[in-house]
Every structure is written in structure tokens, then in C-alpha cells.
């Protein structure tokens, strides 16, 4: 065997997760027509060929429009050929409704508010990874494939909703916020919904131990209630111990705030166009269509994404709470940034691993990831509050967001990765 040449690859991608595959695919397209090569290294075996089953894959992503465009620049055909039948194996969702477990507040984001056909697309992990692997990486002459615990937990599974569930609701991703984390119901295709239930490790164990019928009951009990009445501003046992005049004042203030919170939500429900901002009932789970599996949730961010000639991308650089499916979207944002810098370096005669380019990658992505991760964390923190005053103010804030178009559009644009 001849000794290996000293420099055989212009870029090495270590790790062939979804982000690694996307980066290698995107670079292979930039290098197309040149002798430059990207090497993809992973001790794990290559992704299995995609075998569509009648029920969706357990692992799904809510891809933002900008992530989709990164993937399409990476060569993922927007209307994949069989077996990668993207249109019938995914849902482009046009709305997202988020509401509170402890107050009447809710927010509904609409794609049309920001002039987009959809807020994102919910798609199976196996479809994305195997389409990238089979159609781009295995066919590109510019790629060499070199294969060889918890803050909180999330339970993921697939459910089927009744066929009678109205069409209008099938284009909406539902997220109900609990103090321990969000419970999300994401339409994948047909009657199938992906369930991502972030909760405490203890609650996770309880949920997984339930028999299927009891689990469905627990799920429906958790997702189906609409906005609830907020708790008292001052808990009754505290208010009872207050002197008379102060007690009257605290009860009065509490009732006034509750009226304001409920009133704002009512105002949203009775808007001129009821379809634009009114609360939509989520579907009830009719049957369990997949096993219940769990994974640990970690929130971490590397203090620097670069060192020497190495750049961290995707979950190697940062992992966030799985709210609004932003983990992969952040990773694909990294892919876009690295690829753009490599493309620019190639076009202008820069060293592909120049510290200056890596510093730009670090600065650009740290800023963005901190913004998004910070926002997710803050939202998660806000919903983690269970005391009276916090819930009331959160409720007022959510209702205000739902009513104020520009604020809502701004948040929807961040969620869509724009």
C-alpha cells in the first residue's frame, strides 16, 4: 500500500450526523469541478438506506425555510425522487400555536404574517440524512467517505390522530408550555403526529412506564386543554393571613389582572378575522403509532467554535433545548456560514483554514447562537415560573404578543431562521 499523501483533503468533516452530512454535501457542491476534496470521517457506520415505513420515523425535524434552502444548496432535491418522497412524507406547516398550561394566554404565528408560504417543514431525520448520503455524498467525486447525563429528558413517539381532525388544524405545529418544558405535537404526514415531550427525568420515567392507553390519556390530558384561567396573584393561604384591608387589596389586584389577562385573550379570539389569531384546538391522540423512546437534553455552548484549523459545527459547538426544533436549524446555520466562508476563500485565493476566516465563523455564529439559545432559554425560564404574579405577567405578555402584529412577525421570523 502506498503511504498516504500528506494533504489529501481540503476540508475534513468529523462526524456524520445530520449537520456533518449537510456540511460535507454543501462543500462537495462548492468544490464541484475542482480537484479539491472533502473527507467525511465517522467511526459509526454510514446511514442506513431510507426505507419508508407506513408510520413516520420517530426522529423528526422542524426545518426552517432558511435551513431548507441550505439543504437544497447542499443538493437535497426540493421534490426528492422516490424513495425520498419529500412532499408526501412531510408537512409544510403554515401556523404555530403556543399556549400556556396555567393561564388563558396563547400566541398563534401565521406564515402569511411574514409573507412566507410556511413557517417550516416537519420531516423525518432518516429521510434527510439518507437522501444527503445516497444522492449527494455517494455520487460526488469531491467527497471521500471515511467510515468506520441529563438536565432534563425528552420523550419522543408517534401518534395517530382521528381522521376527522379538521384540515385547518393539520398545518399547525402545536406547543403547550409546561414549567418543566414544552410538549410539542408536530404534523408529519397523514394522520401521524410526532410527539416531543420535554420534561423532568422523573416524569419521563412515569410516562414511559404507563401502558399505551394510559399514556394516550396522559398525553391528551396534557395537550388538549385550551388556555386556562391564571392562578391568584397572591396564593390564598398567604392572602388569608394578611390583615383585612391588605387582603382586600391583594384580592382586588389579582382579580383585576386576571380580568385583563382573560380579556386580552378574548379580544384575540374575537378578532375580525377569526382564522388569523384565534385559538385552535389541538388534535386528540387516537392511537400510539410508535414506541416511546427518550433522550437526554443538554444545553451547552462551546466558548470558542474554532482552534487551529478546526471549526466546531452543529451539536459539537452548541446544543439547545428542543423548543421549536431549533437545534438542527442552528447546526444548518453553521453549515451555511462555514460553506460561505470556504466558497469566498476559494474564490479570492485565501487559505481555506486561515485563522482570519475561522475567527469570522466564530464571531458570526457565537453571536447568532447566543441570541437564539438565549431566547429559547429565556422562554423556557419564563414558562418555568409557577407562582401567581409571574404567571399573570407571562399571560399578559403572551396575549399582547399575539395581538401586536409587528412583535409577533418578528418572533415568527426568528423561528423561521430569517
Amino acid at each position: 500500500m502506498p503511504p498516504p499523501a500528506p494533504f489529501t483533503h481540503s476540508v475534513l468533516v468529523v462526524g456524520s450526523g445530520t449537520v456533518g452530512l449537510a456540511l460535507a454535501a454543501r462543500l462537495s457542491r462548492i468544490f464541484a469541478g475542482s480537484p479539491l476534496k472533502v473527507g467525511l470521517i465517522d467511526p459509526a457506520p454510514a446511514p442506513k438506506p431510507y426505507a419508508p415505513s407506513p408510520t413516520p420515523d420517530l426522529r423528526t425535524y422542524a426545518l426552517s425555510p432558511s435551513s431548507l434552502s441550505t439543504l437544497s444548496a447542499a443538493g437535497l432535491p426540493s421534490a426528492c425522487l422516490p424513495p425520498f418522497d419529500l412532499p408526501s412524507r412531510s408537512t409544510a406547516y403554515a401556523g404555530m400555536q403556543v399556549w400556556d398550561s396555567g393561564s388563558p394566554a396563547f400566541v398563534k404565528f401565521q406564515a402569511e404574517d411574514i409573507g412566507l408560504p410556511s413557517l417550516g417543514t416537519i420531516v423525518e431525520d432518516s429521510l434527510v440524512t439518507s437522501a444527503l448520503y445516497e444522492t449527494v455524498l455517494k455520487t460526488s467525486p469531491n467527497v471521500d467517505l471515511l467510515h468506520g447525563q441529563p438536565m432534563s429528558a425528552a420523550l419522543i413517539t408517534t401518534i395517530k390522530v382521528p381522521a376527522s381532525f379538521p384540515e385547518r388544524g393539520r398545518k399547525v405545529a402545536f406547543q403547550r408550555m409546561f414549567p418543566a418544558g414544552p410538549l410539542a405535537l408536530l404534523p408529519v404526514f397523514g394522520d401521524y403526529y410526532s410527539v416531543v415531550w420535554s420534561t423532568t427525568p422523573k416524569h419521563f420515567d412515569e410516562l414511559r412506564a404507563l401502558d399505551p392507553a394510559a399514556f394516550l390519556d396522559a398525553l391528551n390530558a396534557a395537550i388538549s386543554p385550551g388556555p386556562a384561567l391564571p392562578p391568584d396573584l397572591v396564593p390564598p393561604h398567604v392572602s388569608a393571613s394578611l390583615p383585612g384591608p391588605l387582603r382586600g387589596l391583594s384580592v382586588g389586584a389579582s382579580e383585576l389582572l386576571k380580568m385583563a389577562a382573560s380579556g386580552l385573550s378574548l379580544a384575540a379570539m374575537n378578532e375580525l378575522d377569526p382564522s388569523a389569531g384565534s385559538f385552535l384546538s389541538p388534535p386528540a391522540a387516537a392511537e400510539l403509532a410508535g414506541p416511546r423512546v427518550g433522550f437526554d437534553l443538554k444545553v451547552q455552548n462551546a466558548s470558542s467554535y474554532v482552534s487551529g484549523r478546526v471549526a466546531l459545527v452543529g451539536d459539537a459547538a452548541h446544543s439547545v433545548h428542543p423548543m421549536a426544533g431549533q437545534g438542527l436549524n442552528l447546526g444548518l446555520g453553521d453549515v451555511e456560514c462555514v460553506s460561505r466562508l470556504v466558497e469566498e476563500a476559494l474564490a479570492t485565493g485565501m487559505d481555506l483554514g486561515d485563522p482570519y476566516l475561522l475567527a469570522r465563523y466564530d464571531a458570526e455564529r457565537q453571536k447568532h447562537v447566543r441570541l437564539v439559545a438565549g431566547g429559547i432559554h429565556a422562554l423556557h425560564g419564563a414558562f418555568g415560573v409557577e407562582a401567581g404574579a409571574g404567571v399573570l405577567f407571562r399571560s399578559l405578555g403572551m396575549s399582547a404578543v399575539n395581538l401586536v402584529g409587528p412583535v409577533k412577525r418578528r418572533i415568527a421570523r426568528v423561528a423561521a431562521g430569517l
Partner: protein
Amino acid sequence: MLRPLSTPSSPPRTPSASTLSATEVSKFSALSTQWFADSASSPSNPLVEMSPCRMQFVLNTLRSEELVPPGHFPLASLTAPRSSPGPARVLDVGCGGGVFLEAALRLGLPPPSLTAIEPAAALCETLAARLERCGLADSSDPERSIEVHNGPIESYPLPPPSSLFSVISLLEVIEHVPPSSRADFIRPLLSLLRPGGVLFVSTIDRTFVNGYLRAVFGAEHIARVTPVGTHDYDWFLRPVELLDLVEGAEGHGMELVEGCAMLPKNGLLGEIETYGLKGRGGEWVLGGEEGKTRVMGGGGGERSKLEDATRGGWGNYICAFRKSQVS
């Protein structure tokens, strides 16, 4: 070692007769080891950060002059102007640490087509070592070595007409040539350019905000990305002065092709943020909106167009000049 062509065959002129400033040469010799960053946390060098933007302008111009094709590694197919056929050669005057040389080689220029002139001997040595370490040139192989000439421009022997240069770059150099010697500096430089060939000049505009506050006071004393004393504000050139210097050189028929401002991408505030907080620079972009930071040549009226476009000050800018087809 790179092919040494450094010692002028004619007896060296006395320093007073040279266009060089001895202070400038010793200033840059002292910087010979600090040109490139070793890691992402090293102090930034605005010359490296500006390079993608400069090369984008250079390639855009060479493409519109039909001297290079589109696609990857365009300089591999650099041709001489159609009107004066011959080997396509590139000359970088005042190459410094070799930022332009590296970019040109990475863009596919064959090393034997590349010549560098640098008066500071210490820089010529670190340059050779750096290019070899990057695998871009190899002095032991004549097919892969570049020509480096250590000396002032006027000491470079005039090649025969068929071997004149198609492209000459003079990037961030003219502001280090004493104003009184500039006409004597530019004349021998232009005689090395082939008819139809292109000269690229980039420098700093002499305006208070972009020139003094940013390039001198800001970069040397606040951000400390350039060593104190690198620039003398009085030596900066307004774009019209550059136009007069180059187009005014008699007998060369030089004509402005295009001039363009180079700006920090996020504006002055963005630059303050990146330099100030992180001690490293940001991304540079070619200015191009509404003709305010860009001027196209094309015969007549360039002077007034340039005056209009640069009234507010351009800061860093780059211009391309074409030598008339008939020599």
C-alpha cells in the same frame, strides 16, 4: 530559497537617487515576522482581512477585461491582452509579507509567471519561508519557484517587450513612497506594463474621518491592529491625486478602468465593535451602491465622476488602470 534575481547587475544607485524612503524600508523589515496570524486569537492584520475584497475586485476587473475565464482557479488561465500576445506575467510591487502573492498562487497562477519586488531584504526571506511552508512555491523546482527581486523598482531590469507584465499590483504601497518621489517611482513601474495590461492600485484616502481617525488614530492607537507609525497621514492620496499621478505619467496612455471603495462590512460602528471588543477585525466589502463608492471608467469625464464619487471620502480604495493598446 526562491530564485534570486535580487542583486541589480548595474551598480546600485545612491540612496538619495532612489524612490525609496530608508525609514519606510526599515519600518517594514522590522515587521517581517508578524505578517500572518498563527491562530484565530492572534492579533488581526487588516491586510489579510482586506485580501478577499481586493481579490474580488482584481478578478472582476480581469474577467471584464477578458484576461481570465470564470470558474475555479481563474489565474491558471491568465492570458496576455489579445493585442500584445506573449506569456502572461504578474508583478507585485512592494509585496510585503506576500498576502497578494499567496492569493494569486492559490487562485492558480503558475509560480514561474509571478514576480515580486520588495525593497526590504528581511521580508524577502520570511516570504520565501512562508510560501514554502504553505506548499505554494518550491525554490528547488524551477517549475514551482517565483522570482523575488530585492531592491527599489527602478533597479528591476526592463524585460524585452514580449515579456512585459500583463498585470501589475501596487497594493497598500503608494502611501509609503515619499510624495516628492512618486512621479519617479511610477514611471519605471509603468514601463514594465504591457500594452493592454492592467495596473491595480489600492491605498488610503486622505480624509479626516476615514483616513486620519480610522486608518491612523483608530488602527494604530485604539485598535492597535497596525503598529504605531505605520502610516503618515500627509502621505495618503486622494483618489483624484492617484488619477493624476497614473494617468499623468506621460507616454504610457494609462486610463482608469474602475475605482471602488473598500469598506468594513458593518460600517464604522461594526468595525469599532469587532476591533474594540475582540481585538480582531471584521469582514471588508467592496462599496458599490448607487455609484457613490464606485466609479466606472470608459473615456472622458472620469475626473469629475471620481470627484463626485469620493467627495465624502473613500477610506480604503482600489483602482484599476489599463495601459493603452498601442505602445
